[in-house]
């Protein structure tokens, strides 16, 4: 008997319409846990670097996490992985909501799509009954609308639907997969779904999910709930509101947007408005949010209320989460009313709320600077807000300039030429980033930005405070009950950290400390992504209810796998390294491990080199960021080392281990 997981995947060959239920190997669970971990292994084995995002041979994997569907609070994430059309690397985007637990209850851990359907279809999974159904009548329909139509059509009000909108159908490189109140948005996975001819995956499950040691597992769950209550009643003092509590920032709750609006960049990540926030704006925005927000809502089995139902005047209701609240507003230099309104269309079209506003602001910047001209924008309205609506529409339909912009700022700039690439300035690994431009290099963030393969900083950061409190007393106060640290030394790192002087950024935390801190933060995120846990209760906030000390117990009692902290950290390192090896095999090298050139004004090239060199060594990677044979061997990944060796990747790296010269991009 398998615990926590079902032990079965659904393999769907879209080209032939063949569907199989395939038993999985429990040894893989022990080594790679589940979710991202086991999906990375499948991708490594079955998707060689020659395969493009839009090849039939590309896989699109919808995975539950190992603990999804158990009573572990907040464990509801679906991990979608494939080849990204934008970065050409592995995309692994996640969504909360209700889909993953439902799939477990239907009796499956993953749905693995391969091939391409000759016509638009949706996959309907109800327990043992699985079928591909015609979706031509849903072509062009919004993602939210589609979910509603399918539930009616099937007479299954409790079915969970993950669907794409027009953007996915038209293979927009930053198309998302939408699912009720959540979406998997990064890396353009919605485009891959559209390319495969799949409009939606619809799930209803009525089977049991078992846990191995029930009483122990429930004890752990109750402790987590108790600690959530404690943290809700005891916000962390001296940090901005969204960092004080738990959850995937409580953006829908918070009215005070001083910090975001004054510290994040407006437009095409260009302009900082230091005195933007005032009483008048605070009042107007609060009124906007209060008048449109019908309810604060949660994902499956989670007490946090990170999302909201939004009803903009005259538009259909939709559900919003997190920071897309402000991305459109700030890209357009507009107000919250505009932002919440255009996000309604964007949700139906199914596009990433981070990339999309930036792509549109980028287009208008090119127009202002004469790289694009009015001829490229025929019929575009004159008013600012109208232009954003017009651009969004063109992009998702891939009409005119929209077809170019639909490839994202990096590829659009390549297609436009004429120096347009200088305007695609906020990318890492060809992918748009949060609009942040700061002053002094932050060594911790430097490493996270440079080496992160999750592409999104919010999916890498957390746990360690972003800045030191001004006084030692405050730092001591924080460290007092900071039991989540994997090692006591982290408390000392924080206690000695000063805002100014000798022990301040960028030389403190020291290079070695930075490696420890980044590794800890990354490890926690990777564990979440295998277990299906929301980062908002674990790796993202300060002092979360899930941490390295109780996770092994959850896995032991839940899945019946003997687990301790060391074994868990090693498992996370194993599939994290596998993700890197997968991307290395696709051409990623040291040259790609860098933040946007203008992310910080004050840079320290020597320190940065030292940081990267030391971190690579720390991780068991060579000077090009390639996992060494020794480190792969230690993780039981000899099969990876052999493959990299066979492809001549080690030979090439040994020629010039510190070279920043671009390596040939594989695949495309």
């Amino acid at each position: 008997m398998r615990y926590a997981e079902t032990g079965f995947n659904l393999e769907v060959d879209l080209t032939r319409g063949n569907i199989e239920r395939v038993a999985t190997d429990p040894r893989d669970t022990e080594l790679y846990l589940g979710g991202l971990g086991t999906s990375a292994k499948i991708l490594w084995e079955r998707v060689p670097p020659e395969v493009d995002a839009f090849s039939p041979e590309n896989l699109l994997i919808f995975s539950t996490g190992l603990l999804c569907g158990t009573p572990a609070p907040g464990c509801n994430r679906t991990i979608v992985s494939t080849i990204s059309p934008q970065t050409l690397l592995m995309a692994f985007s996640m969504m909360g909501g209700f889909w993953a637990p439902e799939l477990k209850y239907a009796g499956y851990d993953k749905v693995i799509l391969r091939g391409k359907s000759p016509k638009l279809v949706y996959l309907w999974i109800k327990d043992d009954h699985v079928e591909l159904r015609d979706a031509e009548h849903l072509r062009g329909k919004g993602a939210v609308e589609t979910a509603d139509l399918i539930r009616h059509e099937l007479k299954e009000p409790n079915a969970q639907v993950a669907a794409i909108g027009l953007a996915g159908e038209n293979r927009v490189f930053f198309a998302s997969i939408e699912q009720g109140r959540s979406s998997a948005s990064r890396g353009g996975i919605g485009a891959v779904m559209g390319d495969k001819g799949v409009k939606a995956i619809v799930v209803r499950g009525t089977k049991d999910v078992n846990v191995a040691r029930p009483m122990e597992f429930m004890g752990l769950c109750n402790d987590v709930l108790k600690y959530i209550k404690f943290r809700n009643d005891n916000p962390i003092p001296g940090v901005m509101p969204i960092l004080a509590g738990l959850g995937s920032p409580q953006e829908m709750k918070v009215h005070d947007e001083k910090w975001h609006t004054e510290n994040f960049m407006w437009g095409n990540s260009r302009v900082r408005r230091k005195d933007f926030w005032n009483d008048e704006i605070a009042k107007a925005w609060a009124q906007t949010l209060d008048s449109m927000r019908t309810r604060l809502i949660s994902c499956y089995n989670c007490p946090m209320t990170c999302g909201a139902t939004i009803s903009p005047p005259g538009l259909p209701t939709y559900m919003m989460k997190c920071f897309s609240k402000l991305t459109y507003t700030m890209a357009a230099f507009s107000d919250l009313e505009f932002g919440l309104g255009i996000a309604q269309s964007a949700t139906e079209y199914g596009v990433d709320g981070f990339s999309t506003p930036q792509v549109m602001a980028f287009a208008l910047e090119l127009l202002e600077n004469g790289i694009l001209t009015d001829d490229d924008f025929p019929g575009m309205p004159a008013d600012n807000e109208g232009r954003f609506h017009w651009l969004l529409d063109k992009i998702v339909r891939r009409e005119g300039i929209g077809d170019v912009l639909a490839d994202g700022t990096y590829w659009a700039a390549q297609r436009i030429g004429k120096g347009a690439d200088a305007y695609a300035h906020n990318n890492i690994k060809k992918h748009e980033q949060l609009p942040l431009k700061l002053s002094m290099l932050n060594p911790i963030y430097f490493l996270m930005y440079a080496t992160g393969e999750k592409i999104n900083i919010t999916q890498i950061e957390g746990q360690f405070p972003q800045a030191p409190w001004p006084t030692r007393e405050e730092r001591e106060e924080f460290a007092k009950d900071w039991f989540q640290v994997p090692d006591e030394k982290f408390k000392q790192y924080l206690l000695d950290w000063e805002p100014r002087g000798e022990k301040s950024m960028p030389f403190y935390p020291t290079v070695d400390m930075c490696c420890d801190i980044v590794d800890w933060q990354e490890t926690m995120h990777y564990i979440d992504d295998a277990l299906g846990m929301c980062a908002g209760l674990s790796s993202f906030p300060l002092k979360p209810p899930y941490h390295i000390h109780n996770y092994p117990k959850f896995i032991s009692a839940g899945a019946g796998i003997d687990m301790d902290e060391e074994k868990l950290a090693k498992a996370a390192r194993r599939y994290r390294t596998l993700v890197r090896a997968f991307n290395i095999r696709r051409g990623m090298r040291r040259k790609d491990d860098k933040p946007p050139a203008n992310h910080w004004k004050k840079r320290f090239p020597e320190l940065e080199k030292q940081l990267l060199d030391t971190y690579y060594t720390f991780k068991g990677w060579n000077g090009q960021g390639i996992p060494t044979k020794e480190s792969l061997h230690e993780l039981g990944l000899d099969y990876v080392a052999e493959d990299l060796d066979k492809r001549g990747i080690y030979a090439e790296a040994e020629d010039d281990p510190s070279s920043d010269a671009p390596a040939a991009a594989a695949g495309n």
Partner: protein
Amino acid sequence: MGEKKKKIVKTIKIDVDKCNGCRACEVICSAFHAAPKYSSNNPARSRIRLIRDPLRDVYLPVYAGEHAKAECMGRNKYVIDGKDYDECDFCRAACPSRDIFKEPDSKLPLKCDMCEDDPAQEKPLCVQWCINEALIYEEREEEVEEEVRAEDVEVGLEAMIDKYGLQKVMDTMCRMTASKKG
């Protein structure tokens, strides 16, 4: 007629405005009633179900009550605060018109027992797990007529008899008894 008697009525006050739609109540209910306790969970077995339609802002936690053998003749609609509700949204019955409050395997009806199961809980677990306090447990005293309560087995058997007829159930019981002995 039974005699009049004072009785503690266990009540769950449901504040639908506070419901965030997470369905933790369904998770913990089905886990508590699993055998062995907490060994599995499955919202389809839960004795509380959330009637949830986010786009219409409908969030109604409903508890399984008595089993109804037949569906109602009419289905009325309620409009409350501008929102449409089907009459069934408030109904606690396991009935032929819908699939909730029935064991997914046997289709036998389920009924909320306020977690008086072994061991009896201080408060129903759905209430304990609803930390947003949409579900509040209250006790009040009432004078009621005492009734003879059917045991669980009897409730189950009655449902089987309704579905398959007395003769069939008796035949099956006889056969099973014989085979167990043999």
